[in-house]
Every structure is written in C-alpha cells, then in structure tokens.
C-alpha cells in the first residue's frame, strides 16, 4: 500500500519534471546560423500579436450597387428562406465565382438580419468590417492588408492612412482582379523626330 503511494508519488514527480522540461523546451529555439552551426537559444518572440487585433480600420463606404442598401428595406417583409437554391427573382445578376461549389449566399450574409454579415463564429458584423469576414479564409492576405502590404493604402506615409475594403477592389462574388487596358507604350526613340514629336506607328 505504502509502496503504491510512493510509486504514484514518484510517478507524479517524474511527470511534473517531464512537463517542466517540455515547457522549457518550448522556450528554446534551434536554428542554423549562416555558418551552418546549430544554435540553441531562448525563444525570442519576434512578432507579437499586433495591438490592432480586433480594432477597426479607416475604410471608405462599401461599394454597394445603387439603392441596394440597406437590404432590410426589402428583406424586412420577406420570410427568410434558408434553402440552398439558384436565385431567379432577384439578385440573378450575381454569378458566384468564388469557391461556388462549397458555399452560397448565407455562408456570409445573415439570414435574419440582412444588413449584417455573419462570421463563422456566429458574430454579426457590419459591411464596413467585411475584411474580417474575408480574413476568415484569407488570413495571410488579411494580415498583410492590416499592415498595408496587401491592397492599396493611401493617405499620408507619415500620417493618417486610408484603407480600402477588400470589396473595393475585389468583387466578393467574383474576386479575381479584372484585366485592364494598359495605357499607351512609350514612344520608341527611333520614332522621335527633330521637333521632339512622335511619329510613325505607335507600336511595332
């Protein structure tokens, strides 16, 4: 009996010790330096969770089609229909080209309050925070966007920044960036005449 107690006690101590080693192992990082030597050192937290996590960003109004918002203007009187289907009476101009096999309208739009978007967690968010919705899948882009690397950020480089919503550039229903007509190519040096005016064919 006593033996048993001792045994379990030592086991517990051993476990704690092991756990402690594990815990301390988590505080150590190993990598090879530029000379190929293994370096073991205490883990340095290089990127802390950003303080702006969960804060909102200065964005322009969402790019709604004319007269479409607030949605509740029409939807308030309608009985919500959660059945997955092809829309024919309204919104039939929307062609979903955004992982259409895996999702449909109500994955992002909220069934009961149409003026809000719905995160997977069930949290309802306004359209002006739609980046949180996009960020659920596109986490890497969301992270870059917040620091101004993904997408366009204007304003002042050393002052107030102006962000754009994902939806300002990407149509959420068909997000691939659309091709553009390029502006004219430069004048070829051989086509620049003595008055400095371009002549001859514009290209090739």
């Amino acid at each position, binding site marked *: 009996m006593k033996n048993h107690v001792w045994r379990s006690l030592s086991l517990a101590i051993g476990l704690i010790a092991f756990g402690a080693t594990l815990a301390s192992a988590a505080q150590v990082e190993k990598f090879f330096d530029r000379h190929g030597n293994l370096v073991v050192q205490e883990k340095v937290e290089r990127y802390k969770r950003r303080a702006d996590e969960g804060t909102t960003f200065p964005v322009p109004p969402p790019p709604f089609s004319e007269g479409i918002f607030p949605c509740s203007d029409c939807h308030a009187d309608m009985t919500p229909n959660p059945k997955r289907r092809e829309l024919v009476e309204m919104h039939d101009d929307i062609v979903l080209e955004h992982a259409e096999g895996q999702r449909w309208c109500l994955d992002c739009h909220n069934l009961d309050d149409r003026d809000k978007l719905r995160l997977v967690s069930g949290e309802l968010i306004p359209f002006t925070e739609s980046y949180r919705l996009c960020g659920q899948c596109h986490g890497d882009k969301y992270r870059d966007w917040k*620091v*101004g*690397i993904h997408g366009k950020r204007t304003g002042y480089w050393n002052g107030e920044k102006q962000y754009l919503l994902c939806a300002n550039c990407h149509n959420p229903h068909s997000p691939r960036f659309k091709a553009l007509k390029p*502006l004219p*190519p430069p004048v070829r040096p051989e086509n620049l005449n003595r008055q*400095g005016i371009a002549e001859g064919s514009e290209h090739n």
Partner: protein
Amino acid sequence: MSNKSQCDKHAFQQSRRKVLKGLAAGVGALALPAPNASASAWEAFFQKNFRELDRDELKQVLARLESEYSKEYGKDVTVKATLPIEGVKYGYGLDLSRCIGCRRCVYACVGENNQSREPQIHWIRVLQLNKEKGVALEYAEHYYNPEEVPVEGHFYMPVQCQQCENPPCTKVCPVQATWQENDGIVVVDYNWCIGCRYCMAACPYGARHFNWTKGKLPKEEMNPETHYLGNRPRPTGVVEKCTFCIQRTREQPGRYPACEEICPVGARKFGNLLDPKGEMRYLIENKRVFILKEDLNTQPKFFYFYAT
C-alpha cells in the same frame, strides 16, 4: 524609311530657316544670355550650386523661379525647397506578384512631376517579362500594347530610379550637380547640371533622362506645387529623374508618391526604412524581396517583392 527621309528634309529646311534667324540675331556668344536679356536670365546664369546657396540667396532664387513659372504657365506656381525630415530614409516596395503592367503609374508620374509631353519623358518604364524566363531583362518587352493586361504567361516589372544607397550616377558628375540627400533621395540641381550625360552612362537602371530639346508642358496640365529639386519645370539640356515625389513626401504629413497612389492593384508600397513598425520594414522582413542588379553593389532602396 521614305517617311524618315522626308522628315529629315523637312527638318533640314526648318533648320536652314533657323540658321538664318540665328545669324540675324548675331553670330557669336549665342550660348550665353543675350546682352539685352532680362536681369533674371543673368541671375540664373550666375546662380550658385543649390548646396552653396545661403538662406537669403535661396529665397531669392525660389522667388525668381516662382515668378518665372507663374508667368509662363499662367497660374500661381510655388517652388519649395523643403529639407529632408530627420530620421527618415525613404524606401519603396513593388509587389511583382500583383503588378499587372497597366502603366497607370507611368502617366500619374508624368502628370505629377511636370515631365515634358513632347518629347515624351517617362521616369517609369514598365517591362513585360516572361514567366518562364523570370527576371531576365534580356527578354523584356518595353513596348507591349495588348488589348488587356496582364497577358497570359507574363509578369510586369516597373523600373524607375532605385534611389541607390551607393549611387554610381552622383559619383561621376563632374560638377556635383547631382547628389544624395540625407533622406536617401538622389536629386539633380537643374540649374547647375551641364548636360554631359555621364550620369546616364553610369546608371544601371536607365533612370536618368535628358531634355534633348525644350519640353512641352501644357499650361492646364502643369502641376503648380513644385520642389526645387523635384518637379519644377526643367530647362533644356539637363538631366532629370525620379525623386520619390520629393514635393509630396517631404511634407508633414507627407502624401504618398503619385505612382503609389494611382496603382489600381496596390502593388506599390512606400515608407520610412528607419521606422521598425513601418510597412517597408514589414515587407522586407516578411516577404521574398530582391533588388535589381544586386551584384553592382548599388544598394537600391527600391525593393521588388512577392507578397504571395
């Protein structure tokens, strides 16, 4: 070809007329201001190098230029000489995985920086490159003009002044008309440059451009917010280049360069390299980055990167 010879002939006739005009004006020191030239022409002739001007002289020079430009372009033109901001070193990022080669930046730059429209001067050259070849300039297409960009199988690389930390262009200038400012921007004093074009031979990026003749800049398109070392109208016979929109970026708060602001895909990034929390440092530390012609040790502050 026949078109060209015809043009040559026309040009020759024109030139003959001009010869006679020149002769009538008096053969001699045509290169110098005419004896009856206005006082300001002589002032311009004897103007010192920008870096040697004291505060009063600078004020006079700026006032002279402002009145000259205001008269010429029929609007209130300001010429600033804003100094570098302490603790700032500008850097630029360009996301090659985003750029679609639409050339919006090229023309936004022309508008902002008062480049000559005829002959055309572009500070930005967008290259269409082959995805199979990678960043291999020898396969670059400079004059692509399809209906739509991006073209399948290609990617795009805009090239402009790389604002080298070790600029080969300033070193070769025989009169110190071009130099690197404390904030890292390489500038030209258009009133000191003698137009020898040695810097153009030295630049590995084709970033420097010469005013081969008096440039045409339509009055209504002229941007009246100018900087002495930046976008003020340029005289004939001098070299000019990108200054990271010095007239915008040196202000507090400072706007982004025009090319950054226009980019429809947000491929262009700009900021202070010395700010550890800034976007430039983030992209350099977290993205795949390269600099153009790294082996030349020019140490560009223009970073091409791939966000994805």
